[in-house]
């Protein structure tokens, strides 16, 4: 896997665009997911994710191979999403797009384990509440929560992506979890 990515990056650095298509194919879902949960709007997420990939391509020469490639890509997407969040007016949050139903059917195909929170999530209303709770988080907590729980990254990876000490990442995750608990813990 790593070899594959290294080869692709070499080819991209030589200017071969088709090699970049493989990279986009590989990471598009993860990057899109990150942008979507950060921005709360599918259209904007699509736009941001595309821009993230284009930035990665243009700046491929600044990629330091000692860093995990995915972390570098996440860093670009995270910074871009934060930029866009800041540019947005807060009132946009209120009418942020509600999670559609497309994901639900996929979700309901997952293993059934009785009346767990996972099952409760099948309700559209709950999906919406989770999304709103995430969007209500201040930017620095939202970033770590999304990276940890939506993109399922380790604390070490998050620390690399955000260029923050692990201790700081942990503190932010703790605070983010507490803030989410206030909205979701009573359900």
């Amino acid at each position, binding site marked *: 896997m790593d070899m594959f990515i290294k080869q692709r990056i070499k080819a991209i650095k*030589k*200017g*071969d*665009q*088709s090699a*970049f*298509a493989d990279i*986009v*194919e590989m990471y*598009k*879902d993860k990057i*899109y*997911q990150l942008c*979507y*949960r950060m921005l709360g709007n*599918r259209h904007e*997420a*699509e736009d941001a*994710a*595309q821009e993230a*990939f*284009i930035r990665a*391509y*243009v700046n491929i020469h600044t990629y330091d191979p000692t860093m995990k490639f995915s972390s570098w890509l996440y860093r670009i997407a995270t910074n871009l999403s934060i930029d866009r969040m800041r540019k947005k007016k807060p009132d946009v949050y209120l009418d942020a797009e509600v*999670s*559609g139903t*497309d*994901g*639900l059917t*996929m*979700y309901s195909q997952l293993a059934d384990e009785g009346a*767990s*929170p*996972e099952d*409760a*999530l099948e309700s559209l209303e*709950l*999906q919406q509440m*989770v*999304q709103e*709770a*995430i969007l209500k988080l201040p930017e620095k907590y939202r970033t770590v*929560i999304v990276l940890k*729980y*939506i993109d*399922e990254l380790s*604390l070490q990876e998050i620390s690399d992506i955000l260029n923050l000490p692990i201790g700081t990442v*942990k503190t932010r*995750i*703790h605070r983010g*979890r*507490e803030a*989410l*608990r206030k909205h*979701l*813990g*009573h*359900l």
Partner: protein
Amino acid sequence: MPCSEKIVQWMHDYLDGDIQKEEEQRLRSHIQQCEACREHFYALEKTVAFVENVSHFTPSDDFVKKVMYNLPREKRRVRWKRWFTHHPFLTAASLFFLLSTSSLWAVWQEDNEFSFSKQEHLIVQNHTVIVPEGKVVEGDIVVRNGDIKIEGEVHGNVTVINGHKYLASAGEVTGQIEEVNEVFDWIWYNVKRVGYNIAKTLTK
């Protein structure tokens, strides 16, 4: 409200999967006894489960295409290189064509000497072959790197390579007259000649 900051810290350490065994045991026993802390902990666990299992969405189907379309244009050289590796047969064919034409081109360049087919009655003046007035030349004439002036009659074909033909009003050629001045004409002329020779040997 939970009992202390320390207990809450342990809860989060536990959720991070980053807790000492001893602390985990103390957390467990405390949660069993204390309802407030138990509720707080369950609420946190539930929250995490909600967020972890929220639906995943995928970008549009033509996401990759859109990204690729918006990239700055790649270097020409790379495009050619990829094309060559993807079309080995065409690459070999074009390479063959290139080599064969370049060798003919080399011959064309090197061969600068004036020469002509030996035929009766021909007069030569300053790289110009003259078919004199009132004379009849029986056979083909090929002139290289020179001109031909036809004032008499030629019973055959006339070919001028890298030169010009001048046909006087009284002059006459029964066969074809051809001027070959460009390298492509030269190549074509060679191809035709080879074809003609093959046909000739076959009919014999």
